[in-house]
């Protein structure tokens, strides 16, 4: 999320290149010009392709599931009976997702911010172990989500912690998965606070931690918050890790605590869309709509925060 690079002076340069007097063969030049235009349209086509796919996807989901969007759908429990398909809803999935997000937030905010502060303010980049931490985080950001699922299964659900397939295990698995997003966003936000602020604070006699706590952190809160929300919106849509830690069971009750079994929106969507009976596809599409509205809302808040509170130094 770096500021946009300076606009290339290109739009002017391409069109307004004055033809050199007497130089160049006219035919070759106009061929060059045609290639130029064709290439520009090819590039535009690349973006149009993505936009068309997005449009088709939205069309498909709204066509299939638009009729499902109602308050009843949000407040009634899922059912396995195809006879009760009209009254089935995603109450347990929605509240499961809310619980997961709460656990996830409680984990990623302190750990992510602390890591970002350490790497930006304390770590000496010439030390091998600090560079190791950095490369490690970059790699963790790209580790497949199934692998986090296996970690959760072997360490949290079974093995050393043996929590079972509960909210706490699911939330922590998702937290580990999106932690790199928070750390990377947090580091950028902290780096954007100019050194003069720190120097001013130190010059007034504040200690290093006082400077960080009273000056650097408050100034970087919008950036950190943006990163946290983006991380949560990614976590909300993650299916594979939850599937692997065993959340795919049929759960028709809302979780009532950290150690409660659960289902979640993406899991419920997966269960419905892979059901052999086609009627369940409508439910899946309805669930997708709810999930996407949730994610778009979260992203909008993040973008709004970024634009509203971004400080120019």
């Amino acid at each position, binding site marked *: 999320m*770096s500021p*946009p*690079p300076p*606009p*290339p*002076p*290109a*739009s002017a*340069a*391409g069109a307004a*290149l004055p033809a050199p007097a007497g130089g*160049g063969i006219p035919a070759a030049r106009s061929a060059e010009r045609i*290639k130029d235009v064709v290439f520009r349209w090819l590039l*535009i*086509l*690349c*973006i149009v392709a*993505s*936009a068309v796919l*997005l449009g*088709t*996807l939205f069309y*498909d*989901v709204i066509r*299939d599931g638009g009729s499902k969007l109602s308050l009843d759908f949000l407040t009634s429990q899922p059912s396995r009976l195809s006879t009760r398909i009209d009254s089935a809803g995603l109450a347990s999935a929605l509240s499961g997702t809310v619980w997961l997000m709460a656990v996830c937030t409680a984990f990623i905010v302190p750990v992510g911010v*602390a*890591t970002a*502060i*350490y790497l930006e303010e304390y*770590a000496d980049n010439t030390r091998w172990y600090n560079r190791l931490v950095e*490369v*490690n985080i970059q*790699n963790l950001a*790209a580790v*497949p*989500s*199934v*692998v*986090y*699922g*296996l*970690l959760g299964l072997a*360490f949290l*659900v*079974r093995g050393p912690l043996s929590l079972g*397939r509960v909210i706490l295990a699911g939330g922590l698995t998702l937290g580990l998965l999106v932690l790199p997003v928070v750390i990377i966003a947090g580091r950028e936000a902290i780096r954007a606070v100019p050194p003069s602020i720190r120097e001013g604070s130190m010059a007034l006699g504040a*200690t290093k931690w006082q400077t960080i706590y009273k000056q650097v952190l408050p100034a970087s809160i919008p950036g950190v918050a943006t990163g946290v929300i983006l991380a949560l919106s*990614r976590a*909300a*849509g*993650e*299916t*594979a890790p939850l599937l692997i830690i065993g*959340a795919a069971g049929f759960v028709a009750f809302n979780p009532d605590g950290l150690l409660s079994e659960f289902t979640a929106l*993406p899991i419920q969507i997966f269960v419905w*869309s892979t059901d052999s009976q086609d009627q369940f596809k409508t439910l899946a*599409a309805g669930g997708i709509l709810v999930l*996407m509205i949730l994610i*778009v809302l979260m*992203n909008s808040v993040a973008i709004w925060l970024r634009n509203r509170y971004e400080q120019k130094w």
Partner: protein
Amino acid sequence: MAPSTEAVSSPGAFSAPGEVSLSYRPRRGEQVIRVLLAGAAGLSVLTTVGIVVSLLLPALTFFKDVSIFDYLFGGTWDPRISKEFGVWPLINGTLLITGIALAVAIPLGLGTALFLSEYARPRVRRAVKPVIELLAGIPTIVFGYFALTFFTPNLLKDFAGVDVGTFNALAAGIVMGFMVVPTIASVAEDGLSAVPQSLREGAYGLGASKLQVSLRVVLPAALSGVVAAIVLGISRAIGETMIVLVAAGLRPNTGVDPTKGYETMTTYIGATARGDIPTGSLVYKTVFAVGITLFVITLIMNLLSIRFVRRFRQVYE
């Protein structure tokens, strides 16, 4: 909190109320905080260690039962019935679908990046960026649903008239390609915009057209960024689970026919590692053996990508 001051009567001309003691006083609190912060950073290293340990331990006991040679070079994957553990069909499926995805994602991603960094004016950028960000924000289960319920039946079968199965590599691959576009576009764009303006201006000064500047100057100059983007895209495609789990089927086929369904490494893990498999059973262990295979492949890709990104940062910054 002001630093502690000691009231020492100063004989100097300035009759300040107090003078700051410059003598050394250890600040335990500061040190504790530093250790706590370093501990948080250490947690991310612990995560990696945790991943390696949790994958390796069951995988090692798996390789006690099944020889690693049979695993890597065996041609049949049937862990439940005939107990054959040749991983090749899973790798075959992964490679085929990744290949289809890249055939879509590389041109579209690089085209998007080139357009954004070389052609688009700020206003156009502001209009195009949200499309890419939206694409990046869509959960992969949604792409899977789309591939299964629309792309295969409506687009491939009815519209294009391709004779594909309900579960097939083609739809999963193409849709996965669009999922990877934002990854490739954003990393490649970082690389392209790190190319100094002077290179472009020099080329324009010699009479180059915009096409020539983009393809023959900027793209080669940003090669390490472009390679990093592609490698990261490969890593994302190999590790993607939900699209293939929903839309590519669970049949461990070999070959390159994209109209058939295939099982990939990730779909095997996703379909097998559910809550009900008993810890320590052979099937439980296969999941981790396939998991560590997947982890090692993506680790190599990620490290390559990190290295290439560092290279373009060093060259131009």
